[in-house]
């Protein structure tokens, strides 16, 4: 006892909030390989999100509807500004664009079947339109992307809407990288590229620059499709007020705003975590831009990036959005990162809920 009494009190080991174990591991990995990490998913850091908001329920001053008895209309129409055939959805929750290549044919088919059963739309992605998703989606939005992989006018004419992708929340201003492991014969052929190479998806459109050009590009797409279908403009959230205003100026029917929690198949981790804005913070500026231009509800706003639950969707709508889009949540519903596959994730050196290196594993595909 005497010896211990002689020891002065010691501090506990304190982990640095700056040099955390994950940060230190990344420094060691970077030093060993000399190059940045590429991963999928969206921002994993904690950012302000819908959990930080609460609804005020009905009380003396507000009148509630009877649950399970009184009708609550959830339908929404997208593309009422210029398109002759706007998209009418039974629910304000759509399936976000995800590439064929990142997703397999059966996954695309499953999303199409589910969305059609729920009365909503799915969206193509980089790599073009597949028969699986066109065949099984009653309403399909065709993405018009910088890479133009698989882009052809026959598919354009089959679309129920066109989404011009300027950027996405996971990597606003950045292109994509579909690593060679995922380039099957079919993916390579659709993209007109050799099999097995790492496929760079361009970061900017090859034939237009800025909002004035975009206006002319939208004119061209409308002329090709006879002004029939809505044209969406999707932007990664960075300057939501001005990007929304410029999309409206360029002639968009719908603005899709994607926050930084939105996923990607693969890009630099540093880009995913350090570029963009949290989804929550971009909704009000986007709504404000629409209101200032007098087109709120005439040009619809779709919000995406980390929408997980009905509560998230309802909060986005309460903030002024017309609909939301889900991507990661739809993949989780299909079984992605399901703990029942924990043993397999362990073999990959990871665990369920954390896996984000889909591009590094050869997958079976149709």
């Amino acid at each position: 006892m005497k010896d211990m009494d002689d020891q002065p009190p010691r501090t506990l080991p304190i982990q640095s909030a700056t040099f955390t174990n994950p940060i230190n591991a990344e420094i060691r990995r970077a030093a060993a390989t000399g190059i940045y990490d590429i991963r999928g998913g969206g921002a994993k850091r904690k950012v302000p999100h819908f959990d930080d908001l609460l609804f005020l329920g009905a009380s003396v001053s507000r009148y509630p509807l009877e649950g399970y008895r009184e009708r609550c209309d959830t339908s929404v129409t997208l593309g009422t500004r210029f398109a002759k055939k706007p998209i009418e959805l039974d629910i304000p929750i759509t399936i976000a664009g995800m590439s064929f290549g990142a997703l397999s044919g059966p996954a695309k088919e499953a999303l199409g079947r589910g969305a059609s059963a729920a009365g909503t739309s799915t969206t193509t992605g980089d790599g073009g339109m597949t028969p699986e998703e066109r065949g099984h989606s009653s309403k399909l939005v065709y993405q018009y992307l910088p890479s133009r992989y698989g882009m052809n006018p026959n598919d354009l004419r089959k679309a129920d809407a066109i989404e011009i992708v300027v950027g996405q929340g996971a990597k606003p201003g950045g292109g994509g990288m579909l690593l060679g492991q995922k380039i099957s014969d079919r993916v390579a052929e659709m993209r007109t590229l050799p099999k097995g190479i790492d496929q760079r998806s361009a970061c900017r459109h090859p034939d237009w620059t800025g909002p004035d050009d975009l206006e002319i590009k939208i004119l061209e797409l409308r002329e090709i499709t006879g002004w029939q279908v809505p044209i969406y403009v999707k932007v990664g959230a960075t300057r939501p007020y001005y990007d929304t205003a410029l999309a409206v100026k360029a002639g968009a029917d719908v603005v899709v705003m994607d926050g930084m929690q939105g996923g990607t198949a693969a890009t630099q981790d540093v880009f995913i975590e350090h570029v963009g804005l949290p989804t929550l913070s971009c909704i009000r500026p986007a709504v404000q831009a629409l209101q200032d231009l007098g087109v709120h509800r005439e040009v619809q706003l779709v919000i995406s990036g980390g929408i997980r639950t009905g509560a998230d969707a309802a909060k986005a709508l309460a903030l002024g959005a017309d609909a939301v889009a889900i991507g990661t949540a739809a993949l989780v519903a299909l079984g992605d990162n399901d703990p029942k596959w924990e043993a397999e994730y362990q073999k990959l050196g990871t665990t369920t809920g954390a896996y984000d290196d889909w591009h590094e594993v050869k997958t079976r595909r149709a």
Partner: protein
Amino acid sequence: MQTYDLEADGLRGLNSALQAQQNATNQTSWEVVNPKGSHAIAVGLDAPIEVTIKGSTGYYCAGMNQQATVKVEGSVGPGVAENMMSGQVIVDGDASQYAGATGHGGLLVIKGNASSRCGISMKGIDIVVHGNIGHMSAFMAQDGNLVVCGDAGDALGDSLYEARLFVRGSVKSLGADCIEKEMRPEHIEILKDLLDRAGSDAKPEEFKRYGSARQLYNFDVDNAAAY
């Protein structure tokens, strides 16, 4: 011959009339007068018709063309024949930026000069430029042939995939991963056919061929300086 006055009757009427033509149409010959630099003229066509535009056009003339032959008796703005799938587009004058961008097929002939990014991201289209082309042409070009009877600007073929580039004159500089390659007999044959179809009397033997060194096909730290 059908004649359409674009100034008097408007763009929508022109494109809807041209897009309505079927493969068996009797109205195979069209003339567009007073184009006055308008955008998106004769876009989204899909029938074996011939459209002659009597003057210069704005952006995206003959965009996404299929089967049709579109002739422009003037110059064209940015993105002529963008994403063309098949058919022919022939420009008597000069072309602005991004001529033939992302084209999957067909033949684009520019009898004057083409500006920067000619053939950007091309995916199978053949492009013949009688004059010169600007900088960053054939950037990320994936497939098809770009033939230049004059000179090429800076950074030709940067990040090139499998497209073939043929230049008769000088090349100011080559882009990342683009190198000069041997001109073999099969390339002479490709070139001869394209020059014939494009109405050029240039000799295939006068051209040099450029293609991808294929060193950037897989992401590698040793290539960091090239990215």
